[in-house]
């Protein structure tokens, strides 16, 4: 028994080192902007850079629209399919897993080819490009949004709830907003925070569609010119990810599992 738990600790320690060492090294590096002393100068430089705030604001707004769009798209559809068209559930699951088959780099390629020309011309305006970016992120988020909403719906009796509501005279919008959404709160919140965590620093799609307007490409640009500032950006971005994942844990009470998977970026 002793020996068994000894090896268990060894594997955990090995993983912990793999995890902590790069973060420690990055943090250490980010403090060395001033020669000879440790300082938060690189963080100050980042926080004083108006582009930092501009790009993070842009990516936040895009993330919020992504969350709203994917919830409006997935929740009513998944609910309706459970209620009326159970034969379509397999197809819905198949579609929501397609981002595993179409990696981000291929998705952005296809989207640009389709929507930059006739008859859509979406990439001709900033507004059109932003819409396309949100649509691409909705696709990226589909696997985990669908899975958490589907698990949430499975845990409530959709048919009985709907019939009970209808017999009390509830309209479809009442059913949706007063019954389905509140019951899916955990699923919606956890996929919302996961979307925030992935969209804010997303690079592949953002760099081809909007360039340095978004936070991911901004980080990349800083990385090319400013050594210490790039480390502080990595730390900031890590803390943002950690913060959102912590919130998910809080809402789902520590049930992190494979439902947070998404396709290759």
């Amino acid at each position: 028994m002793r020996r068994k738990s000894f090896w268990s600790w060894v594997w955990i320690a090995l993983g912990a080192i793999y995890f902590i060492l790069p973060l420690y090294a990055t943090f250490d590096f980010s403090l060395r902007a001033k020669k000879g002393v440790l300082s938060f100068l690189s963080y100050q430089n980042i926080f004083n850079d108006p582009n930092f705030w501009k790009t993070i604001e842009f990516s936040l707004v895009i993330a919020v629209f992504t969350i709203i769009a994917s919830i409006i798209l997935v929740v009513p559809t998944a609910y309706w399919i459970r209620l009326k068209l159970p034969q379509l559930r397999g197809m819905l699951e198949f579609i929501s897993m397609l981002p595993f088959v179409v990696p981000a780099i291929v998705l952005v390629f296809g989207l640009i080819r389709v929507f930059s020309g006739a008859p859509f011309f979406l990439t001709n305006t900033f507004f059109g490009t932003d819409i396309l970016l949100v649509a691409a992120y909705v696709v990226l988020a589909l696997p985990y949004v669908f899975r958490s909403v589907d698990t949430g719906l499975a845990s409530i009796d959709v048919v009985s709830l709907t019939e009970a509501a209808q017999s009390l005279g509830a309209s479809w919008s009442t059913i949706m907003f007063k019954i389905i959404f509140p019951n899916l709160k955990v699923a919606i919140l956890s996929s919302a925070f996961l979307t925030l965590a992935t969209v804010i620093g997303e690079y592949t799609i953002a760099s081809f569609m909007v360039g340095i307007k978004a936070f991911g490409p901004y980080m990349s640009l800083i990385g090319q010119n400013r050594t210490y500032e790039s480390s502080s950006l990595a730390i900031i971005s890590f803390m943002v990810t950690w913060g959102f994942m912590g919130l998910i844990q809080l809402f789902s009470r520590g049930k992190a599992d494979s439902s947070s998977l998404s396709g290759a970026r």
Partner: protein
Amino acid sequence: MLSKQDSLLNGKRDAPKARPAPLPWRNWLGVVPFFLFAFFFIALPSLTLLVGAFRDNAGKLTLQNFVGLFDPSILNAYWVTIKISLATAIGGGLLGFLMAYAVTVGKLPNSVRTSLMTFSGVASNFAGVPLAFAFIATLGRTGLVTLLLKNLLGINLYDQGFSLYSFWGLSLTYMFFQFPLMVLVITPALDGLKKDWSEAAANLGASQSLYWRKVALPILTPSILGAIILLFGNSFGAYATAYSLTGGFINLITIVIGSQIKGDIYYNPGLGYALAVGMIVVMSVMMAIYYMLRRRSERWLRK
């Protein structure tokens, strides 16, 4: 109206339906928005790439684009991508499995398990630009570990042929999100190993290692293989981390596709389409195998 009901009641002896059945096509309206979205933003882009892959610059049907895939530099890109994906899927899979084993079968305190799961959720999503920065600060030319090895042990990694910006460096970087992904995917499977099985084996006189060889591993094999395939696909399609780490100077399939989108080096739209289609094909095969294996493993995990 009345007469119709009468005829129903008296003529056929059938009770009238309480409510007229809704027209079936109405039900389908509810799913139209989602399927329209899926058509425009998933199917149409993929189909456009597929059609483009079979056309030349003049729009005529051709297979020339796929012949282009056999160009030595493209073949090399495939080879490097496969090597990195295999190395990180197996390496990350092994470390991830051992860690998941430690917190499930290894009976470590529950707090360790909770923190491992949280950290895996974070780390598996911590890919891309910031991850590249973190590894430059760790294993770059002036990275912490590089300097430590040089100053303490006198080993100069970069003199030994190591470079963060080539195969091994990129593999080590990918591992950072690969092994947490393995932890997330394989932990439920390890949880599915029932205590009864190991007890039954022990009652029959089997040692721990015999139990693992004859019972646990055969049950886990589909799950493990499936997870490794998932990891393989995850690094096969990765772009952001590789691009920001190497600035595009590594010959990976995703990087080649990226340069085709930008239209810079040896621009050839048809080849770009063929590369993208090739990627979708590889990923589809991977996912198909993954689902087959998952179905097999679910047989044992049923409660």
